[in-house]
């Protein structure tokens, strides 16, 4: 298991039963690590689609002059989907959890692991 996969496994363990899916994704929409535990959530498709979303979020933020994007949170009736850029913005990290998850704790967890994930990406 690579360091990147180890870190994602730690995140999954920390989230317990609320975990649905996580991926570290290049801005080409291809995931380099991660996956989904739910048959109802296709992490490959999510990775590709949210790469487009994150690119547009960066453009939107730039056009309205509110600085670089930290993260994006989408709340649905079933899930929280959180995405944030890693390092220099060539990758993003996506995480889907159930609505039962404690959102504040999930955000703290992402803050805690974002830099470690960036460091663990093979170059």
């Amino acid at each position, binding site marked *: 298991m690579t360091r990147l996969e180890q870190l994602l496994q730690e995140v999954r363990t920390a989230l317990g039963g609320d975990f649905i899916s996580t991926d570290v994704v290049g801005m080409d929409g291809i995931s380099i690590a991660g996956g989904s535990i739910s048959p*109802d*959530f*296709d992490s490959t*498709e*999510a990775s590709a*689609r*949210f790469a*487009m*979303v994150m690119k*547009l*979020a960066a453009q*939107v*933020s730039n*056009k*309205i*002059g*509110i*600085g*670089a*994007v*930290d*993260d*994006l*949170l*989408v*709340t*649905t*009736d*079933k*899930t929280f*989907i959180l995405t944030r850029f890693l390092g220099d913005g060539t990758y993003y990290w996506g995480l*889907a959890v159930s609505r039962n998850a404690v959102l*504040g704790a999930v955000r703290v967890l992402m803050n805690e692991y974002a830099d470690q994930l960036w460091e663990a990406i093979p170059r």
Partner: protein
Amino acid sequence: MSVQGNLEDITVADLIQQNCQARKTARLVVRTGDKEATLFFAEGHVAHAALGDLQGEEVVYEVLEWTRGQFELEPGIAAPLTTIQRPWTGLLLEGARRIDEKRYQPSNEASELLTHSEVKEMELDGILKEAADQVNGFLAASVVGMDGIPLSQFTRSKKVDIESVDAQMTLLIKLVSTSVDKLGAGVIEDVLLTTESAYVLAHFLENHEFYVIIVADHRNANLGNMRLISRLLTERVAKAMPK
């Protein structure tokens, strides 16, 4: 040590918000004309309010309408009894709703001059203005259709081009909606974009044809408060929407 001031300088809504958020125990005496009301704060709530023989929530709603007068805040004085159970955010929103109703209740003469739609738009403007007082670090808010055209807008910062925010965020929200639909990840309730200088929170109305957007300063905003107010604001906007 007590703090005294004028309601022209700070609103009753601000005094309630500040004392509740700071979880202070205090007594607030507010005077206007020959009326004097007393409110007590305890552990993040308005615990009790009295005005003459009247006690409880109704006193708060009346005092929220006072825009002139004096106040005196005395820290450390506990409420003699508890007559209010509703959270402070609920009190402020209900108070704001009642003020809206009175403010935009058109007279017969005005009814002849204003269409129903125009009255509703004025009501929306008022709701957004009041939301501005309840969101820390508020910069701007609007009610936007999924065509990116705003129905109502209110801004407090010249730095924010709200027209541009509405148009650009609609593009983003449409792409997010498509993505979430294709993934079967449920029905979207809200989308929060966090950047180095701002929070931009878009909350859908139930019909998903419109959304309410709030922009707040990242340094001063409280995300929990912003999400709560956004949800409550959306409910009020939905009721006030022109049919």
